[in-house]
């Protein structure tokens, strides 16, 4: 089974971190990525840029409306994502518990799902 781990972090708290702590956080993620790669669980991991640099795209009545982000007023935004392969939600959650981002924010662990059309799995 594949799971996505979404790391939600308060960006202002992240910006306020002393450089040494930020370095430690990032180094911790690199170490975890290597560990998960070594144990074969990691599929993809990406750190995300500032939410202020986001574009929000909506298509309504056939027209695309593109506006500058961020998406929501809430302080916590997705700062990084992991796509992992795990036996079950427990195993995925155990990986999330190793994420340094979890020490400053919240990691949301979500199972992926299959897309169906007319009851048939299509993706």
């Amino acid at each position: 089974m594949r799971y996505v781990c979404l790391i939600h972090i308060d960006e202002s708290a992240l910006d306020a971190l002393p450089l040494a702590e930020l370095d430690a956080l990032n180094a911790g993620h690199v170490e975890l990525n290597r560990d998960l790669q070594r144990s074969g669980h990691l599929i993809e991991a990406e750190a995300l840029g500032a939410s202020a640099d986001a574009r929000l795209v909506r298509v309504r009545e056939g027209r695309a409306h593109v506006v500058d982000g961020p998406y929501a007023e809430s302080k916590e935004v997705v700062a990084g994502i992991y796509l992992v392969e795990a036996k079950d939600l427990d195993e995925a959650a155990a990986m999330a518990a190793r994420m340094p981002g979890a020490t400053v924010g919240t990691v949301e662990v979500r199972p992926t799902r299959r897309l169906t059309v007319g009851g048939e799995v299509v993706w």
Partner: protein
Amino acid sequence: MTDVHRTIDAVWRIESAKLIAGLARITRDVGVAEDLAQDALVAALEQWPASGVPSNPGAWLMAIAKRRAIDLMRRDKMLDRKHQELAPMLDARSEDEEDQVHTAIDDHVGDDMLRLIFTACHPVLSTEARVALTLRLIGGLTTAEIARAFLVPEPTIAQRIVRAKRTLSEAKVPYEVPRGAELEARLSSVLEVIYLVFNEGYSATSGEDWVRPGLCEDALRLGRILAALAPEESEVHGLVALMEIQSSRLRARVGPSGEPVLLLDQDRSRWDRLLIHRGLAALARAEAVGGALGPYTLQAAIAACHARALTAEETDWERIAALYDALAQLLPSPIVELNRAVALSMAFGPALGLEVVDAIADAPSLKRYHLLPAVRGDLLKRLGRLDEARVELERAASLAQNARERELLLARAAELGGEG
């Protein structure tokens, strides 16, 4: 099971291989290393329910195991005799010297993992023992999980693992990554073990279920571990590519009532696009390493031809036939010939395919192989020789060991009508 126990289970699966690999470096014995790692696991089971799971559980387990390793070495004078070169470490009295032991483990984690894989797949062990030991030591599976996956009683697997560890110890198999000419032969033994695990999941040779996806995931995980450790080996990427692309079809291979669905009949929209994408990327990596393509890369290239075709009709059979030609030269075997016959028949008509099949019909290794009469039956059917085709398909059914596959073959024979 409590939450903490589930977490410990998960932590073990992620961390155990690294733990055992590092410990084996100082103990020079994978059996002892695994015992030490297990001791640390027991400590976790005792302490974590009360203390909570530590923030870096892998480091916690390693710290406990290292401490026990040092205790064990101090006690066990035998080790002094066995491993002269380690003597300074064994006498570690001051904290400085203990630190040396710790550093010895922390450096070269990747090298240690490779050593562990090569040791678990050492030719001194039987294939079955290699499979069990690899799943246990590198895959982090429990004995019970391995037993369930291979449908054998748990004590059988437990014994197999104990015996394998003893054999490694008695044969004084060095804990190292082979070099030079030996590397290639030993690497192919490792790849063989991983592919065997995969195949047992992908087309179960026995039992009621046609596929056991859990084993495929474990094999893929092992393949990715190896690819990260040995990125310069083209065949490692080739094997990963082959497994990813084949895995992409897992959901399409099984019909609504658990029956097998053959490649050309599969609903391709059910193929897993992420796995295909990853498989094609791994194939590109294998080809980028350079040199002649090895057997796994060639098979991956064949699988990629199917993956790239959006419908069965779009399949590039001429290219597949050419790839099978290359594979047959590299790895001449009746099974490869049988597949080449199918590709030729699709590219150039059933008569040519039948010629190739008939040339290998007497091969002793295919005597009890159900796919020979199955393929021959299909070719005869396409040539309109229906009575002969039915006889072949029924013979194939009688040889098939998997219940689901047997039913499918009988159904295909029945479709041809006539007496029977």
